[in-house]
């Protein structure tokens, strides 16, 4: 069971238009009107007219060039809104969403309820939609040009299926011109004298194929359900980047808050849906001179909170000076991180610390993933190999660290140089930023004789300032090195 959601005014509604406006607006593409708002319609502006005709009808008309990429973005946003109702959803560009809802009816307590919910969501987004139901996606698309009552009456609530003979009847009466065939095919059909789909269906398959081509036959067969029609499902991207094109340019920063609110609402919806959160809101304003102004709002607490986001953005906006009238606003959330589940005591706030690592993910998000690391001990004889830094997957090191018995370990320095530093030497003493005196017995470490032999005599040396260093004599290089500090 397919539901078609058609956005009839998508070219118009993909622009951000201030509400309290009695301005007539028309969207044009290649010098002809594609769609217009209610005010322009009342004047008599219609789709298909040339721009000069539209201007002739009313001089007080605002004409905006169509932005197809922007429409696709908005359609994707709408798909995201409908996605909770059914995972089988596909985008039919330019302006339709096809949703398989047969398996969602029980969950949403019936068809009426489901349609009402989708309708209210679309109303919140201030989008004009028309619905249609049909057993095949192509039929649903075609019915979306008819009033909903017609396709709704096909559904038999008691039996939970479509009335096949009613469906057939409606198809037969369908005007040929609303089918989504290319203009050439349509004119060919008109030339043959067919006005209803029923006329075409009464012809045999081979006769149709001969006159109109194979692809048209396939289309009609998929429309009636004779051939399967496989849809590619919409896969939402886990990434937030939205742009809002403004129908009227904005001159003041205060006025920018209205489109920003809309973008932030979208963001909050997105974050709730994916259980994500982030650290930085990145705003990009583009003015009419194509200058781009970007600023970032950093969030100390990575919580999903509309008021907080808005407040921080407002604060930041106060210090921003616009370079010109703003034409579009873009919001991106960088570096999304998963929301971690919080467990709290139900009764009283305990004084104990929690074992959550939220703070580490925040720090990583801002300072880079290499900025935080854990340290693990390994069973190695060569000192620099016995300690290892691990940037992630710290749960795995837990086991390693508890395996090693710390009691029998020899005395080791707490600080280790990443690379041993060479020591200067005279006949009787060692110098490393001052005089060193050896104060312990040697500890010989010999290892890796089979590949790169390590032969070292380790000593503890006291610096003239009193600090203790860990030094060794490398028998291979015949030199002294300092490797660590006892601290």
């Amino acid at each position, binding site marked *: 069971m397919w539901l078609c959601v058609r956005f009839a005014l998508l070219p118009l509604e993909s622009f951000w238009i201030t509400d309290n406006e009695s301005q007539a607006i028309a969207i044009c593409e290649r010098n002809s009107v594609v769609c217009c708002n209610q005010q322009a319609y009342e004047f008599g502006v219609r789709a298909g007219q040339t721009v000069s005709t539209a201007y002739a009808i009313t001089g007080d008309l605002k004409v905006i060039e169509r932005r197809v990429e922007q429409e696709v973005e908005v359609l994707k946003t709408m798909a995201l809104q409908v996605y909770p109702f059914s995972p089988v959803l596909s985008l039919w560009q330019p302006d339709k969403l096809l949703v398989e809802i047969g398996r969602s009816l029980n969950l949403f307590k019936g068809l009426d309820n489901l349609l009402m919910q989708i309708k209210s969501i679309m109303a919140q987004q201030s989008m004009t939609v028309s619905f249609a139901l049909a057993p095949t996606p192509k039929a649903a698309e075609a019915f979306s040009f008819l009033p909903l009552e017609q396709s709704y009456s096909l559904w038999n609530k008691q039996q939970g299926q479509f009335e096949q003979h009613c469906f057939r009847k409606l198809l037969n009466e369908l005007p040929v011109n609303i089918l989504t065939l290319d203009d050439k095919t349509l004119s060919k059909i008109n030339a043959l004298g067919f006005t209803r789909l029923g006329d075409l269906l009464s012809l045999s398959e081979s006769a149709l194929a001969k006159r109109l081509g194979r692809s048209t036959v396939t289309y009609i067969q998929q429309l009636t359900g004779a051939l399967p029609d496989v849809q590619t499902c919409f896969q939402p991207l886990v990434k937030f980047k939205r742009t809002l094109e403004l129908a009227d340019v904005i001159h003041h920063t205060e006025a920018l808050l209205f489109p920003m609110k809309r973008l932030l609402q979208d963001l909050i919806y997105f974050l709730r849906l994916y259980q994500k959160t982030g650290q930085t809101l990145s705003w990009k304003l583009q003015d009419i001179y194509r200058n781009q102004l970007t600023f970032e709002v950093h969030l*100390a607490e990575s919580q999903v909170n509309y008021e907080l986001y808005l407040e921080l953005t407002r604060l930041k906006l106060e210090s921003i000076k616009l370079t010109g009238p703003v034409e579009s606003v873009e919001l991106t959330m960088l570096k999304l991180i998963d929301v971690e589940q919080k467990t709290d005591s139900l009764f009283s706030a305990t004084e*104990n*610390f*929690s*074992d*959550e690592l939220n*703070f580490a993910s925040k*720090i990583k998000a*801002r*300072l880079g993933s*290499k*900025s*935080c*690391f*854990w*340290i*693990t*001990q390994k069973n190695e004889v060569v*000192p620099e190999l*016995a300690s290892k*830094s691990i940037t992630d997957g710290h749960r795995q*090191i837990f086991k390693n*660290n508890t395996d090693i018995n*710390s009691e029998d*370990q020899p*005395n*080791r320095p*707490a*600080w*280790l140089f*990443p690379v041993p530093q*060479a020591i*200067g*030497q*005279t*006949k009787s*003493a060692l*110098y*490393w*930023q*001052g*005089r*060193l*005196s*050896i*104060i*312990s017995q040697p500890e010989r470490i010999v290892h890796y004789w089979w590949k790169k032999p390590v032969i070292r*005599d380790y000593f*503890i040396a006291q*610096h*003239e*300032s*009193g*600090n*203790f*260093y860990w030094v060794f004599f490398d028998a291979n290089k*015949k*030199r002294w090195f300092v490797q660590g*500090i006892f*601290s």
Partner: protein
Amino acid sequence: MSDKSSINQLLKNPALWQAARVETHRPSHPTGFEKLDVQLCDGGWPQGAVTELLLPTDGTGELRLLLPALSKLSRQQGYIVFVDPPFLPYAPALNKQGLNLNKLLVIRSKKLEQSIWATYQALTSQSCSAVVTWLTGKAAYKNEIRKLSLGARQGRCWSFVLRDEKAAVHPSAAKLRVALSMAKQHKAISSNANYGMSQLSILKQPGGWSNRKVYLNLFPEQRFWTSVSAKHWSVPVVKQAPQTVLSPELAAAIPYSVEQWLKQVTPGNKHSLPLVH
């Protein structure tokens, strides 16, 4: 005097120390050194506050001083965080001191601002029991330490700031300020009872006496080391290499890398060494 008078308002402020009032119990954690606990008015490292540790150089025994407390905290809930340590913490040594390495997170930042921000995040996260931050340079860091104090109070955790001893001249918002230094090697011999001990001076503590000195034996294994002077040790001396004959000034200018060194002391330019006079 009405209850709303300004003096009464002031007296209610917990940040104000009054000599006449005997402080009730304030939360703290034993340092692991009884001698030190006695001198500290809270009986240990104060909770929910910054403790500032001033050091002549890195590696004066600061980890030995902190580790008994940190090890105990690492056995409970909450993480231990090191922000910008000067070197790599070495796992076997920390493990031997009893620190639970599974709880130790090390953070490296590039700028002071980032380091303070990361510390503040850790302090206020409610997931860290102790945060140790290393600050380099001799600057006053007045605002930074004040910010960390607020963070520590909010997160009710132990915050330690380690910095150069020359910063002692600057005022600081830290609740407890302690300077650590090592007894000098040359100072002398067995007559000094505190030889080999580390000296801890309490520079500031609210509600207690400052300018106290405590001597702690941070390296108890010293007694197994020898007190014989280095010249009695058979230090292996390299005979063939030309760099064995070095003036102490030149030697003090180490570290050099071996390659760098060899480049300089090739026989041809032996006499044009920059530091030999």
